[in-house]
């Protein structure tokens, strides 16, 4: 495998990097650098993200661009390799001189490029839901965070199904920190984590894990497994008649497992999301129509793709309000607390202290026929946790990621 990897690195160094969707350059255009995986284990999730960005850019360009300047989208495919994320981020910033960098799927890829972006004056927008805690003035996060997802879903699951939870999580920073959040919230509610299993990325066989779960007898399972290989868990658990309620911060709205697997593999799955394709407000319906007109083969518009779409509009709003693409000017707009856009989910605003985004959150559940039902509407939830623990980007740039057990020093 080691050999295969080093070969892989060698081959990629030789291969010509793909340039997709690059419009003819003009001096006046605004350049958006985009890093999304459209091959590799996460291609399934990266493709809707690329599509979302392309749709937003096309719409904005047709409507006259940003301050009259057309957007040029430069997309590179890092193929799920963190080293390539770094290489491409450097290239986009130094060689292509992009005005903003958007993208990254896993938290590992985000943390790989964040230090590089920190050494530049280029804004970075991360468009995924994630484990939260990044306090960094150079980054805007527009996905949902644990106080919007875990602090809502876990109490619901504990109340409805019981206090004993088993966790299966992908073994990297996202899974580890999400599990930490779960431990804290479950403990505060008087529940117990009866088992925690971290799964190396790429593992696809879960026979023994399923037995471990049966032995631990939990009331419900927190499934924060990542990637197509690990998703095989659902099929194998359903075949073994595990039949336990499940909760997750990334299933259904992000991985559209309910569309990819034959029912009832995702039966009793719960998630809290700012976007899922089943939202049926008029704004959401109009957005879905535009999307499917441009990408008729899309299986599902996931929250990542939706966030990627919204991110371009957020950037447009910031640049137009700042009348500049400079990070310092854009941050002055964020500091006013009025950096809001009307997105298909409703109004979303960037919080000045943490530079994370407010979202309207809904709790959804999947039934045995894989229909998605909204069980609860939490309304708009602010990303409050970072400012609560003392992150205030209007005063100090920490450039750090905090977790429930790694808080800023007072």
């Amino acid at each position, binding site marked *: 495998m080691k050999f295969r990897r080093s070969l892989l690195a060698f081959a990629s160094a030789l291969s010509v990097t793909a340039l997709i969707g690059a419009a003819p350059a003009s001096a006046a255009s605004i350049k958006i650098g985009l890093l999304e995986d459209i*091959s590799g284990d996460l291609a399934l999730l990266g493709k809707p993200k690329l599509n979302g960005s392309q749709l937003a850019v096309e719409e904005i360009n047709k409507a006259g661009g940003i301050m009259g300047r057309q957007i040029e989208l430069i997309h590179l495919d890092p193929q799920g390799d963190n080293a390539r994320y770094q290489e491409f981020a450097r290239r986009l910033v130094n060689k292509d001189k992009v005005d903003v960098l958007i993208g990254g799927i896993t938290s590992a890829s985000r943390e790989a490029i964040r230090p590089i972006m920190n050494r530049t004056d280029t804004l970075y927008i991360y468009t995924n839901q994630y484990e939260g805690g990044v306090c960094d003035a150079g980054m805007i996060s527009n996905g949902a965070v644990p106080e919007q997802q875990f602090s809502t879903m876990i109490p619901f699951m504990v109340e409805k199904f019981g206090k004993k939870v088993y966790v299966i999580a992908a073994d990297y920073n996202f899974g580890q920190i999400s599990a930490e959040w779960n431990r804290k919230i479950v403990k505060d509610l008087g529940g117990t984590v009866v088992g925690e299993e971290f*799964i*190396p990325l790429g593992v696809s066989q879960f026979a023994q894990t399923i037995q471990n779960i049966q032995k631990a007898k939990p009331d419900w399972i927190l499934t924060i497994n990542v990637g197509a290989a690990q998703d095989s868990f659902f099929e*194998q658990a359903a075949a073994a008649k595990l039949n336990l309620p499940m909760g997750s911060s990334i299933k259904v709205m992000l991985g559209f497992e309910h569309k990819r697997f034959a029912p009832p593999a995702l039966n009793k799955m719960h998630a809290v999301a700012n976007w899922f394709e089943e939202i049926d407000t008029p704004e959401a319906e109009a957005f879905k129509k535009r999307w499917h007109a441009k990408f008729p083969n899309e299986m599902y518009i996931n929250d990542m793709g939706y966030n990627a779409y919204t991110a371009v509009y957020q950037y447009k709003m910031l640049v137009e309000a700042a009348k500049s693409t400079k990070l310092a000017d854009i941050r002055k707009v964020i500091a006013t607390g009025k950096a809001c856009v009307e997105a298909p989910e409703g109004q979303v605003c960037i919080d000045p202290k943490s530079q994370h985004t407010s979202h309207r959150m809904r709790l959804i559940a999947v039934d045995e026929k894989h229909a998605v039902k909204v069980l609860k509407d939490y309304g708009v939830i602010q990303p409050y946790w970072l400012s609560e623990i003392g992150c205030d980007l209007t005063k100090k740039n920490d450039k750090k990621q905090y977790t429930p057990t790694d808080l800023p020093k007072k």
Partner: protein
Amino acid sequence: MMGVINMAHGEFIMCGAYVTVGLVHGGLPLPLAQLCGVIAAGLVGVLVEMTIVRRFYKRPLDSLLATWGLSLVVTQGMLILVGSSLAGIGTPEGSFKVGEYSFSTYRLVLFGGAIAALAVIYFIFMRTRFGVHARATMQNPQMAQALGVKVGRVYAISFGIGAALAGFCGALYAPTMTLIPTMGATFIVESFVTVVVGGANVLLGTAPAGALLAIIRTSLNAWEGQIIGQIGMLIAVILIIRILPEGVSGFLTRRQR
């Protein structure tokens, strides 16, 4: 033994799985679709042997590069042609209970399938005329050719059988896994270390090595979860190779003498 290292073996697994799932979506019953998956993988295997692999016998490093390139082309080609994922078909119904644990009946089918594959391979290589030719060719191709064995054809069919077995793996696992173009790669690490630990003799080495590593991994998975299982298995591999440089089969044949 054929002097080639096939890095595209995972793609034959993918081929078997994709053909199976495609045909099930098309309305074919699962066992029939699986059979077609196996045949398709086998035929593609013969085709690959005749066009690419044939030129690389006794050049293991060149063959590694060529087949690995093929693997990249195929996975990326499938991504472009059929998209990033195929909708699953669901595992056949049925489960049974042992004490407080419940298992999918299909797991037993997988188990039976593995045993049957071993039995068939044993029969082909030990009891048929083709098997004698194949073993003779592996041992001394020049001499076999001098005695009238069509060496080229033996190579092609042997490679095809290998590909068909990979396709069989894919066809069996297809209902239980996420179908993505890179799905074959998830099997590669395990199969590679099993072959290394097994040593030269397939029946005497690879099968016991597979069983041994599976027992080590599964019991560690049960004890401390998947990470420890994976680490433990790899440590076991290092230890076994250190103690038994010729692998399990080398150890067993020496005992026989």
